């Protein structure tokens, strides 16, 4: 079956996995690798801002272009625009409504944003992930704004008895230039609402040269004042009358079960009201709760104290032997043997044999935890066959579906109110915490808030996979790379949905493995088996992190071995400016986007390398102990190159004086938020490179909080990060921003460390490897 033409049955990839009997072949088939995959024909030439193909229509419920759904105007002229995606720090709650305001000629100071509840039939897809919001919604939001503008103009023209072509909306009013008459949006609201909604085809979009807001970058986020005064409401901040506070003790091993518990001491804790078992689902079960024992109290502090006093006996189950040291050895072993071939061009095997020199690198990246500052939390109020949820969820529609299914009630009876998210990074795409709250509220007959502690977050989440990337590069006697074999071994996200999944899903293969843009005659990608022993999930930039680390490290290793400049080496491998032939890449996924609109364009890849090299002063002389490293990566259909400068003192202490990043994300809305995303991506990249490591012993996560899973703090953050945004061509579709800044950071850093010290780090995190 062709998954992308049957979106109704699917929600992201978990639905794909459910539609097929999951064996290793059928996953691939179900995900479209073997099936016929119709690509949109490449669009050679597009008029400015004309409609371009995106994958938006293939997402569950597609898009809804209807001003009556997204825009309302009060008699006082206040325009309310719906934000239907989740705000987790990317600025989307500001930027999408801003697009509508731009196109309808609303004055932004008279616009209010209202958050949509989960309702995809009404608003279209709400899965805020995959760095998709702007690229899927720039055009629909423009169309919505243009429709609203056109209805306001029609209403004014009727009122004045003049042809609609003679009136024009401008800055919150409609003007009839010939007579000098004006009517404010508020005065026209009632009449405009009676106008029919114009068809998309006939809409006249604004000329980009008339934009007041788009691409300008002077707009603060709508929640700025509330955030700085403590009034902003996150999931954790919801308080309902009669609400109970709950924390849950969950099985320490994935797939473990509760054997027995003794609540006597917990019940003695002041403020504890009840202790009860929470239903769990066998692993894997997508986003269903792990189960365990819940402590219900009058406040969260009492619930935590009560939980500490519980005596619980667990049955650890089949994953009770999961051990990160042993597992790493098994990944290395798998990577040293042939695996499932997922891309093949030429004959890499033969070329490696005949090569003058073979450079081999094995790159290891451990599990990572998201640790959003707001740990998972949700409030639920179940009354009879109705349920209302308040939660910081990335997927409001998915949460609604999963809660309804779990409670056995119609989806229409579930309301999901989306609060601000205190960080998401992929963790909050999984709604297990909302389901927990719903189950407890149903049981207790009262509203319940389930708060995850930081330890819960680190130990019971959906971790970033652990991976071993092995690359062999074959060089001829002139130092030209004639062969490239990349084996990528890592437990797959598919294992969270289907027992026994051992190969990467297509969306994982397409993140820096089979979409490799290098111009190498003999190129082979393999994906040996890897079994999962914990819940694996999406983490900001996903598989791109280990792949970019490996590929971009190897480029610098080849440069060092052949005594060439790493940037020149990189450009040589990228090769000629061209659109990479999709039939050779065999990546049917392409981040869910049609290849015609979003090809792998090596001219753009080269351009960000050249731009960052120019602006970031590649090749500049640096003090002793300093070094520069460069890396580039295309992900989420954007192109990003980063130069990192490191300084390493004689004790091996690493600091980062400067970061330079160039991003080509096509047409953009709010450059100020692009800069903030890239600044943040550097910090996240530095955190994972320097410290990021979750390990298992006896099936249990060994870390729990920021002491043993540290992240970068201000005193060790880069002194300065410069961001250069490539000005878009007039017809360049928008692409991702939230995630793609992360992947090139770690390899640029590691390459800089090599430049400074001659030490090549192939295993992350850096930890103490630089200490003498």
């Amino acid at each position, binding site marked *: 079956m062709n998954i992308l033409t049957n979106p109704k049955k699917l929600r992201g990839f978990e639905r794909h996995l459910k539609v097929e009997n999951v064996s290793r072949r059928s996953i691939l088939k179900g995900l479209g690798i073997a099936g016929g995959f119709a690509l949109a024909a490449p669009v050679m030439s597009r008029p400015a801002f004309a409609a371009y193909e995106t994958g938006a229509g293939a997402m569950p419920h597609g898009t809804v272009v209807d001003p009556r759904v997204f825009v309302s105007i009060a008699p006082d002229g206040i325009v309310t625009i719906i934000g239907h995606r989740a705000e987790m720090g990317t600025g989307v709650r500001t930027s999408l409504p801003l697009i509508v305001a731009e196109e309808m000629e609303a004055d932004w100071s008279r616009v209010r944003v209202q958050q949509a509840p989960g309702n995809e039939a009404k608003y279209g897809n709400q899965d805020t992930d995959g760095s998709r919001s702007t690229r899927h919604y720039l055009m629909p939001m423009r169309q919505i704004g243009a429709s609203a503008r056109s209805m306001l103009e029609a209403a004014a023209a009727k009122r004045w008895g003049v042809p609609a072509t003679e009136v024009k909306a401008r800055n919150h009013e409609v003007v009839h230039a010939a007579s000098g008459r004006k009517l404010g949006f508020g005065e026209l609201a009632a009449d405009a609402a009676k106008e029919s909604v114009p068809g998309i085809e006939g809409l006249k979009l604004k000329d980009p040269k008339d934009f007041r807001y788009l691409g300008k970058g002077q707009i603060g986020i709508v929640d700025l004042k509330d955030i700085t005064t*403590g009034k902003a409401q996150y999931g954790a901040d919801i308080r309902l009358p009669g609400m109970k506070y709950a924390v849950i003790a969950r099985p320490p091993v994935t797939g473990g079960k509760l054997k027995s518990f003794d609540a006597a001491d917990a019940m003695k804790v002041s403020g504890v009201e009840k202790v009860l078992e929470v239903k769990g689902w066998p692993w894997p079960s997508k986003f269903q709760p792990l189960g365990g024992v819940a402590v219900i109290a009058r406040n969260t*502090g009492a619930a*935590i104290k009560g939980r500490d006093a519980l005596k619980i006996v667990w049955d650890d189950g089949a994953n009770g032997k999961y051990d990160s040291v042993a597992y790493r050895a098994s990944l290395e072993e798998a990577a040293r043997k042939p695996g499932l071939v997922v891309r093949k061009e030429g004959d890499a095997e033969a070329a490696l044999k005949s090569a003058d020199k073979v450079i081999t690198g094995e790159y290891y990246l451990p599990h990572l935890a998201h640790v*959003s*500052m707001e740990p998972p939390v949700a409030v639920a109020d179940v009354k009879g066959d109705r349920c209302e949820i308040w939660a910081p969820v990335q997927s409001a529609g998915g949460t609604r579906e999963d809660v309804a299914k779990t409670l056995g009630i119609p989806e229409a009876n579930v309301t999901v109110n989306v609060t601000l998210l205190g960080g998401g990074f992929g963790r909050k795409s999984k709604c297990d915490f909302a389901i927990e709250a719903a189950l407890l509220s149903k049981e207790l007959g009262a509203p319940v808030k389930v708060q995850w*502690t930081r330890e819960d977050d680190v130990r019971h989440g959906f971790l970033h996979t652990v991976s071993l990337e092995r690359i062999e590069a074959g060089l001829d006697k002139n130092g030209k790379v004639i062969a490239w074999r990349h084996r990528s071994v890592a437990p797959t996200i598919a294992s969270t949905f289907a027992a026994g999944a051992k190969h990467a899903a297509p969306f994982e293969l397409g993140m820096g493995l089979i979409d490799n843009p290098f111009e190498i005659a003999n190129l082979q990608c393999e994906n040996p088996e890897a079994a999962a022993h914990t819940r694996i999930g999406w983490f900001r930039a996903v598989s791109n992190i280990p792949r970019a680390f490996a590929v971009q490290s190897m480029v610098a290793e080849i440069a060092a071995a052949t005594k060439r400049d790493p940037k020149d080496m990189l450009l040589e491998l990228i090769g000629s400016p061209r659109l990479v032939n999709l039939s050779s890449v065999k990546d049917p996924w392409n981040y869910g986007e049609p290849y015609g609109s979003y090809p792998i364009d090596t001219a753009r890849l080269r351009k960000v390398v050249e731009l960052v090299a120019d602006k970031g002063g590649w090749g500049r002389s640096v003090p002793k102990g300093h070094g520069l490293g460069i890396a580039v990566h295309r992900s989420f259909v954007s192109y990003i190159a980063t130069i990192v400068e490191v300084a390493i003192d004689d004790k091996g202490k690493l600091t980062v004086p400067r970061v330079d990043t160039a991003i080509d994300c096509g047409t953009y809305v709010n450059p100020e938020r692009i800069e903030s995303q890239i600044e*943040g991506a550097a910090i996240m990249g530095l955190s994972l490179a320097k410290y990021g490591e979750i390990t298992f012993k006896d099936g249990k996560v060994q870390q729990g909080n920021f002491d043993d899973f540290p992240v970068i703090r*201000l005193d060790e953050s880069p002194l300065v990060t410069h961001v250069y945004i490539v000005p878009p061509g007039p017809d360049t579709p928008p692409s991702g921003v939230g995630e793609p800044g992360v992947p090139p950071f770690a390899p640029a850093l590691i390459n800089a460390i090599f430049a400074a010290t001659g030490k090549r780090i192939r295993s992350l995190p850096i930890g103490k490897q630089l200490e003498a």
Partner: protein
Amino acid sequence: MIKVKINGQEQNWDGDPDLPLLWFLRDEVGLTGTKYGCGQALCGSCTVIIDKQAVRACITSVSDVVGRDVTTIEGLHPTGDHPVQKAWRQLNVPQCGYCQTGQIMQGAALLMDNPKPSHDQIREAMAGNICRCGAYQRIENAVRLASTGV
């Protein structure tokens, strides 16, 4: 019965005197601007100001603050226009925003103690506050801006 003073207002507490101030503020008083991030004074999301000092509310018990003045983000400035808050908005510091109230309280406490902190002093004083979105460059610049006049 314990009586404590939060943002100038007296609050009564008849429960566990060892209850962390964080949960008293959030769940019992309803001042949710003070955030939970770690529970172990590792992240600074719960920072409040007690007698001009930045304090982590997650490891401070209600009984610890009897007779002392607790200021939360809600009480930092009546209209939310403390120089640190204004600087934060001027530089568009927040991303997700969750840790920002703790950051702002830490920055405000720093400036009470040291109105003109150096570059290193800012970086050191703010190092106890984690921002997972990584807004550090702007956090540092905003504290500096607040110290030099907004």
